[in-house]
C-alpha cells in the first residue's frame, strides 16, 4: 500500500527582481525557494488515505532537483511521509516537464505504487503537464485538477470530482493505479509538528542518479528550451491619477481616442 507523491521546490519571486545575465531566468538573488503550494495538497491527500488505511501503508515523496531541493523533500517528509527519493544529474539542469516526467516514470516503475498524486501545477512555471505526461509515459489512467477524491487502498477504482470551466464540476471514476493531479483546496494541509520536522531529518532519502534508473543523459534531453524571459513592456494600460473630476475627464478622452471621435 503505497502512494508516490512527486514534489517540486519552486521559486517565489520578490516584488522587484532582476533577470540573469543570460536573460533566460530571474537572478536567484531575487527569489526564495519553497515547496510548491499545490504539492502541499497532494501530500496531504496521500497522508489522509494512508492514515485511514493504518499500518503497512506508506507515502513516498520524490523530487527531481539538486541539493537545494532537499529542503522541499524534508518539508514533505516532516508532515508524515515515510521516506524520500531525490533524483539529480547535471544533465537535468535545464530539464523541461516532459524530461522530468521521464525520470519520474522510471521511479514509478521502481516503486510500483498503488497511486501517484502530483500537484495540479507548479507555482513558478505553471505548465501543469508533468503529472499528465507521467501518466502518458506509464500508460496509466489519469485525471487532472482533482478537487475531491474518494479512494482507499485496495480499491480497483477511485471516484473523483474535477473542476471545469464555467463553475462546472465533473464526477468521474478512474481505474487504479492512476495518476491524479491535485487541486488547491481539496483538503486543509497540515503544518508539520516540531517533532515531525526533527524526525524528517533522520528519515531515509535515496539519492539517485540517472544511471540508477537506467537512464542516460540523452534519454532526458528536453524537447523545449527557454529562449528568453522578460517583463513585457507596458501596453496601453494607464493608471489614471488625479481628482475624481480629472479622472473622469481623462477617461472620457480615452474613450474618444479609442472610438476615433
Amino acid at each position, binding site marked *: 500500500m503505497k502512494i508516490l507523491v512527486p514534489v517540486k521546490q519552486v521559486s517565489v519571486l520578490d516584488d*522587484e527582481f532582476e533577470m540573469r545575465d543570460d536573460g533566460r531566468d530571474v537572478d536567484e*538573488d*531575487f527569489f526564495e525557494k519553497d515547496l510548491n503550494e499545490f504539492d502541499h495538497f497532494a501530500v496531504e491527500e496521500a497522508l489522509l488515505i494512508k492514515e485511514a488505511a493504518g499500518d503497512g501503508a506508506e507515502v513516498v515523496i520524490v523530487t527531481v532537483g539538486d541539493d537545494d531541493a532537499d529542503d522541499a523533500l524534508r518539508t514533505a517528509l516532516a508532515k508524515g511521509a515515510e521516506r524520500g527519493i531525490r533524483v539529480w544529474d547535471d544533465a537535468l539542469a535545464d530539464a523541461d516537464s516532459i524530461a522530468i516526467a521521464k525520470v519520474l516514470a522510471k521511479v514509478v516503475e521502481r516503486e510500483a505504487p498503488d497511486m501517484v498524486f502530483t500537484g495540479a501545477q507548479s507555482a513558478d512555471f505553471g505548465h501543469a503537464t508533468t503529472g499528465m505526461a507521467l501518466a502518458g509515459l506509464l500508460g496509466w489512467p489519469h485525471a487532472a485538477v482533482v478537487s475531491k477524491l474518494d479512494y482507499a487502498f485496495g480499491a480497483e477504482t477511485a471516484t473523483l470530482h474535477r473542476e471545469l470551466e464555467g463553475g462546472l464540476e465533473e464526477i468521474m471514476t478512474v481505474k487504479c493505479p492512476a495518476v491524479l493531479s491535485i487541486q488547491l483546496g481539496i483538503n486543509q494541509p497540515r*503544518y508539520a509538528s*516540531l*517533532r515531525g*520536522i526533527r524526525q524528517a531529518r533522520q528519515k531515509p532519502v535515496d539519492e539517485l542518479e540517472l544511471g540508477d534508473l537506467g537512464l542516460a543523459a540523452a534519454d532526458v534531453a528536453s524537447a523545449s528550451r527557454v529562449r528568453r524571459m522578460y517583463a513585457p513592456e507596458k501596453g496601453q494600460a494607464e493608471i489614471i*491619477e488625479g*481628482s475624481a*473630476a480629472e479622472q473622469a475627464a481623462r477617461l472620457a478622452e480615452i474613450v474618444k481616442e479609442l472610438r476615433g471621435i
Partner: protein
Amino acid sequence: MASRDEIRALIDRLLDARDPYAALGAYPFADEPARRALEAVILATPRLRLTFAAAPYAPADLLERISIDANAATCLRLAKNLATPPSALARLLTGDASDRIRRYAAAHPRANAAMLSALAGSPSIEVRRAVAGNPNAPCDVLARLVAEGDGLIDRNAAVGPFADTGLLQTLWDTGERHVCAEVAAHPNCPGAVLEQAEAMADALIRRKLASNPALRSAALIRLLADDDERVRAAAVRNPTVSGEFFDDPEGDPSPKVRRIFARRERLAAEVMARLAADLDGWVRRWIARNPAVPEDLLARLAADAVMEVRRSTARNPACPASLLTVLAGDPVAWVRAGVALREDAPEAALELLHDARDPDVLSALGRNQRTPASTLEAIARHPDKDVRRAVAFNRAAPPTVVALLAEDPYPLNRVIIAGHPSLGLAQVEGLLDDPEPQVRFAAAARLARLWAPPDLASGSFDIKP
C-alpha cells in the same frame, strides 16, 4: 537583568550558528564590536542584503550599514522601506540615483526638509508630486512647487501640515474644487476662506469645511443643519463639536448622521434612550458600547434582536454582572464570546462558558486571564491553530501550558510564545534551534533584550505576547 557573560555567550553562539535571522534578533542589543561581527552573518550574501533592505523590522543601524555600499536594486528597497533612517536615505540620493529611487525617497515619511527641498528641484514631475505629498515638506518648498500650476501638486500641497495661510489662500484662489475642498479642511485655512467656503453651493467643499477642527462654533452649528447629509455627518464627527451644539441630531433623518452621533460618549440620558430604540442596528450597536448607558437601557439592549447589539452590550465595560450572566447563555456564540473576553465576568458567567466548543468562545476564553489552567490547557491543544494562538497571548497562562505552545506546529504561535513571560529561559534557548527563522529571531531578541547592558536593553524590537 543584564549579564555581560550571558550576552557574550549568546552572540558567540549565534555567530557559530551563522544564522542571519537569529543574529538579526540580537543585533539591536549588541555593543558595537559585536554588531560588526553579527553584520558579517546577517549580510553574508546578496540575497540577505536584499531581503533585509526591504524588511520593515530591520533596525535603523543595520539599514544604515546596508546603504553604504548598496547596488541599485538594494537602494530601491531601502528607499521603499519605511524604517530606513534619514541619513541612509540621504546616502541613496547621492550620485546617479534613478527617478524611481528619488520618487520613493520623496514620499518617505522620514525624509527631512533639506532632502525634500533638494528633491523639489528634480526634473521629474513624479518626484516633485511626491515631495508635495510628503507631510514633512516645509511651506517654502510647497510654495515653490505650487507655482508650477500642476493640479496634483496643488492638491497634495493643500493637505500639507506646514502649508501656511498665504499658500492656502493662493491655492483657494487658483485651485480646482478638490484643491479648494482640501484648503477648506486645513487647520491653517484663512478666516475669510472659511466664510466663503460655507457659502459655496458645492457640497464637497462644505463637507470638508465641516471637518475643519479650527472652524468656529457658529459656523459648525449652521453646518449641523445643512441640507446635505454628508455635510451634517462631517460636522457631527468634528472633534470640536460639543453636546450643546446639537439641536435634535438623534432625530436626523439620515442613519449615517445618527450613527456618528451615537458614537459620542457624552450623551444625555433621554437622548441615549431614544437612540437605543433607533430602527438602525448600527445606531443601537454604538449606544450599547457606551459605558455611560444606564443599566435598564443595557438590559433592553442585551435582548436586542440584532446579535451585534447584544455583543456590544457584552463588551460594554459598565455591563453589570447579572447581565453578563444572561449574555453568557446567549444562543449566538459571537455574543457569548464577548462575555468570555471579560476578565471581570462573574464566576457564574464563566462557568456557563467553560464547556464551550465554539472557536470564538474558546479563543476568547484563551485570552482571558481568569480562565482556569485546565481549560487553557485544553484550548492550547485545540486542533485550530487560531484558537490555540489565543492562549499564547494570555500573559497569565502557566508554564505547563506555555510549554505546549512552544511545540506548536504553527510557526506564528511559536513566534508569539517566544516572548511569553512564563516560558522558561531554557525553553527560549531551545527555540534558537527552531526550524522557522521568525521563531529563532524572536527567541534571540528575547534573550538579548534580557541580557543586554542597560543602555542597549531598550532596542528597537518589541516582541511581546
